[in-house]
C-alpha cells in the first residue's frame, strides 16, 4: 500500500468515536497543561501515562500526543495575556505577544498564533507523511554502530544546547545515562547496583523520573514565584490582523513552518530552539527591526509556527529511529515502550496501523485546536486566572496517585519525591534536567549498541569509522562539541570583558 492509502486507513481508525474522544480529551488536557502554570508538556504527558494503562495502544498514544501539541497551543494564551509562559517555547512569543496585548491587540496575537500553529502543525504532518515512508528503507539499513553514533550525535546536541555551560549539560547527560544502568544489564542479564533492594532489580521507572523532574520540581520552583496574585487578563477581541499585516504574517508563518520542521529532524533539540531561531530570523530580515519587542506580528507568527512545526518534524526521528528529539518526545517514547511498541524502523513495517492512525489523529487534533482556540480564546483566558495556590495541591495529588499506579507501589511515590528534589536542587545550580530524562530513555539503547559494536569489531572501537554513516555522525558530533566548547570559552571571555568595562 502507498503512503496515501495508509494515511486514509489511519484516518479511518483515528475517526472512530473512541479515538476521536481520546484525541479531544488529549488536546483539551494539553491546552490546560499549556495554560496553567506549574506543569510543562513533559510533566503533563507523563502525568497522564498511568491513566492509559488499560487503554488500547492507539487510543493511548493519540491522547498523549494530543497533550503534547495541545500544550504548545495553550502555552501561548497565558504568554500573550498575562506574560506568564505556560511552557518554555512560549517565552519567545512573550517578547512581542505581551506588548501586543498591552496595546489592546491580544486577540490578534492569539489569532495569529492559532493560525500559525495550525499551518505549521499540519504542513509538518504532511511532511512526515511524505518523507517518513521514503526514509524507512534507509533507517532499516542502520546497524548497532549507526544507532550508537546517532545517539552520540543527539547527546552532543543536547549538551551544546543545554544552557549555561557544557559542563552542566554533560553532568545532566551522564546522570541520565547512569540512571539507566540500574537493574538488569541488556546483554548478560546481570542485575547491577540493586544494593539488595528488590524494587531496583527492574531499575528506575521512567514515568517516576519524568514526573519528579518535570512535575514536582517545577511545583517546588513555581511556589517560590507564583504565590502572588495572578494578573487580570485583558479583553480579547478581533482575532485577525489588519490587511497590511497579512503578507508579513504569512511569510513568517511560511518560514517558521520549514524551520520548525527541519529542526524537528535533529535529535537533541527542543522546541525552544526553532522558536528562538525563527524570532532571530524574522528580526534579521525585517525592514525595521526596532519594531521587535514592541508588538511586531512577525515576532509572534514565526516562533509560534516554528514551535508547532517542530512537533510534527520530531515525529520522524521518533517513529523511524526511536530517538526522541526533546524531553516530551522522550516521555512519548516511554509511553510507546509501556504499551509494548518498540519505536524504530520496524515500527512502520510491523505496526503501520498504529503509526498512520497517530499521524492522522494529529491532523484532526490540530483542526480541533484551531476551533478550540479561535472562538474560545476568552474562555481559555479565564482558565489562565486560576490561582496557583489552588492548582499545585491538585497537581501533587494527581502525581502521587499517578506514580503509585505505575506498579501499585509506594516505592514509586518515594521515587517521585526523590527525583522532584533532585530536579529542584539541579535547577538551583542551573544544571538542566531535560537531558536527564532524554538520556535515561536512550541509555539502554546506547549500551546495547555500544556493546554490539564492540563485539562486532572484536573490541576495536575505532573500526566504527569505517562505516560511512556512523563515521560521519561521530565526526559531526566531534565538530558540534568543539564548537560548543569554543563558544563557551568565548562567552566567558566576553562576560569577563563586560565585567571589566
Amino acid at each position, binding site marked *: 500500500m502507498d503512503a496515501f492509502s495508509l494515511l486514509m486507513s489511519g484516518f479511518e481508525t483515528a475517526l472512530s468515536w473512541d479515538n476521536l474522544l481520546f484525541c479531544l480529551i488529549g488536546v483539551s488536557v494539553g491546552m490546560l497543561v499549556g495554560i496553567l502554570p506549574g506543569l510543562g508538556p513533559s510533566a503533563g504527558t507523563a502525568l497522564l501515562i*498511568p491513566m492509559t494503562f*488499560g487503554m488500547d495502544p492507539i487510543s493511548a498514544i493519540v491522547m498523549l500526543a494530543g497533550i503534547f501539541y495541545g500544550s504548545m497551543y495553550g502555552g501561548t494564551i497565558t504568554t500573550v495575556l498575562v506574560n506568564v509562559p505556560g511552557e518554555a517555547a512560549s517565552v519567545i512569543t512573550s517578547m512581542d505577544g505581551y506588548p501586543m496585548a498591552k496595546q489592546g491587540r491580544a486577540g490578534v496575537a492569539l489569532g495569529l498564533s492559532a493560525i500559525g500553529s495550525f499551518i505549521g502543525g499540519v504542513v509538518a504532518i504532511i511532511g512526515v507523511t511524505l518523507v517518513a515512508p521514503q526514509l524507512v528503507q534507509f533507517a532499516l539499513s542502520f546497524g548497532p554502530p549507526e544507532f550508537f553514533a546517532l545517539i552520540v550525535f543527539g547527546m552532543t546536541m543536547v549538551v551544546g544546547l543545554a544552557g549555561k555551560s557544557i559542563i552542566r549539560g554533560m553532568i545532566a547527560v551522564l*546522570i541520565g545515562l*547512569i540512571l539507566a544502568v540500574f537493574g538488569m544489564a541488556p546483554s548478560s542479564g546481570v542485575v*547491577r547496583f540493586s544494593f539488595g533492594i528488590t524494587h531496583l532489580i527492574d531499575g528506575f521507572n521512567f514515568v517516576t523520573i519524568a514526573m519528579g523532574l518535570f512535575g514536582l520540581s517545577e511545583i*517546588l520552583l513555581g511556589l517560590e514565584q507564583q504565590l502572588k496574585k495572578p494578573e487580570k487578563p485583558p479583553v480579547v477581541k478581533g482575532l485577525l490582523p489588519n490587511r497590511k499585516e497579512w503578507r508579513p504574517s504569512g511569510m513568517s508563518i511560511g518560514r517558521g513552518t520549514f524551520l520548525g520542521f527541519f529542526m524537528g529532524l535533529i535529535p537533541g533539540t527542543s522546541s525552544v530552539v526553532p522558536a528562538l531561531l525563527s524570532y532571530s530570523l524574522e528580526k534579521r530580515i525585517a525592514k525595521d527591526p526596532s519594531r521587535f519587542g514592541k508588538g511586531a506580528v512577525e515576532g509572534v507568527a514565526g516562533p509560534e509556527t516554528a514551535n508547532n512545526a517542530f512537533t510534527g518534524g520530531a515525529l520522524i526521528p521518533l517513529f523511524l529511529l526511536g530517538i526522541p528529539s526533546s524531553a516530551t518526545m522522550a516521555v512519548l517514547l516511554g509511553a510507546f515502550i509501556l504499551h509494548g511498541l518498540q519505536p524504530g524502523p520496524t515500527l512502520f513495517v510491523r505496526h503501520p496501523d498504529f503509526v498512520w492512525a497517530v499521524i492522522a489523529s494529529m491532523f484532526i487534533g490540530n483542526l480541533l485546536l484551531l476551533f478550540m482556540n479561535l472562538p474560545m480564546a476568552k474562555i481559555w483566558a479565564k482558565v489562565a486566572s486560576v490561582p496557583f495556590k489552588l492548582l499545585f495541591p491538585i497537581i501533587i495529588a494527581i502525581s502521587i496517585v499517578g506514580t503509585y499506579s505505575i506498579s501499585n507501589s509506594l516505592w514509586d*511515590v518515594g521515587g517521585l519525591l526523590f527525583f522532584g528534589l533532585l530536579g529542584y536542587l539541579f535547577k538551583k545550580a542551573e544544571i538542566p534536567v531535560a537531558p536527564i530524562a532524554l538520556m535515561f530513555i536512550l541509555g539502554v539503547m546506547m549500551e546495547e549498541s555500544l*556493546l554490539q559494536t564492540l563485539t562486532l569489531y572484536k573490541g576495536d572501537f575505532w573500526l566504527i569509522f569505517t562505516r560511512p554513516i556512523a563515521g560521519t555522525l561521530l565526526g559531526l558530533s566531534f565538530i558540534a562539541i568543539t564548537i560548543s566548547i569554543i563558544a563557551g570559552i568565548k562567552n566567558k571571555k566576553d562576560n569577563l570583558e563586560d565585567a571589566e568595562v
Partner: protein
Amino acid sequence: MLLTKVTEMWCYLLKNYGVWLGICILLFSIILFIGSLDYQLYGQYGPGPGLYPALLSGVLILISMLYIIDCLRKGNKITFSSVFPKGKVLARLSTIVASIIIFIFIAPFVGYIVSGVIVMLMLLLPDFKWYTSIGVSFTVTMILFVVFDTILGIPLPANIWGW
C-alpha cells in the same frame, strides 16, 4: 595570616552551593565506579556488564571535578542564601515534602482516601479557609479514587475496609 586565609577559604567553600553539589555528584560517581568494578569488564566473548557503567562513572568523575573547579571561580559562585528560599516559602516547600512522606507512611494503614485528604489538607489549609480546604480535599480525592480505582481498575492503597 595563614590561618585567616584558610578560614576565609573554608567559609567560601561552606557557603558555595555549587561546590557541595559537585562533591555529592563526585561521591556518587566514585561509588558507582568502584561498584562497576565488581562486574566483569571484558570477557571471553566481548564486553561485560561492568564496562559501560565503569566508562560512564569514570567520565562523570572527571566532569564533576571540572564542575567543582568551575564553581570555585569567582563569577560562578552560587551561595546557599542566594538560591534557597527562607521564611514562609521555605515552610511551604517543607510542607510539600512532608505531605508526600506522610502519605508514604500512612497510606498502607489508613487507605488512599484518608491519606489523600490529609495530603491535600496540609497543602490547602495555609491558603484557604478550613471548610473550603476540606471541601476541595475531599472532592479531588474522591474524583481521583473513582477515576483510578473504579473506572481504570488500578487498586489504590486500602485500609481494612477496602478504601
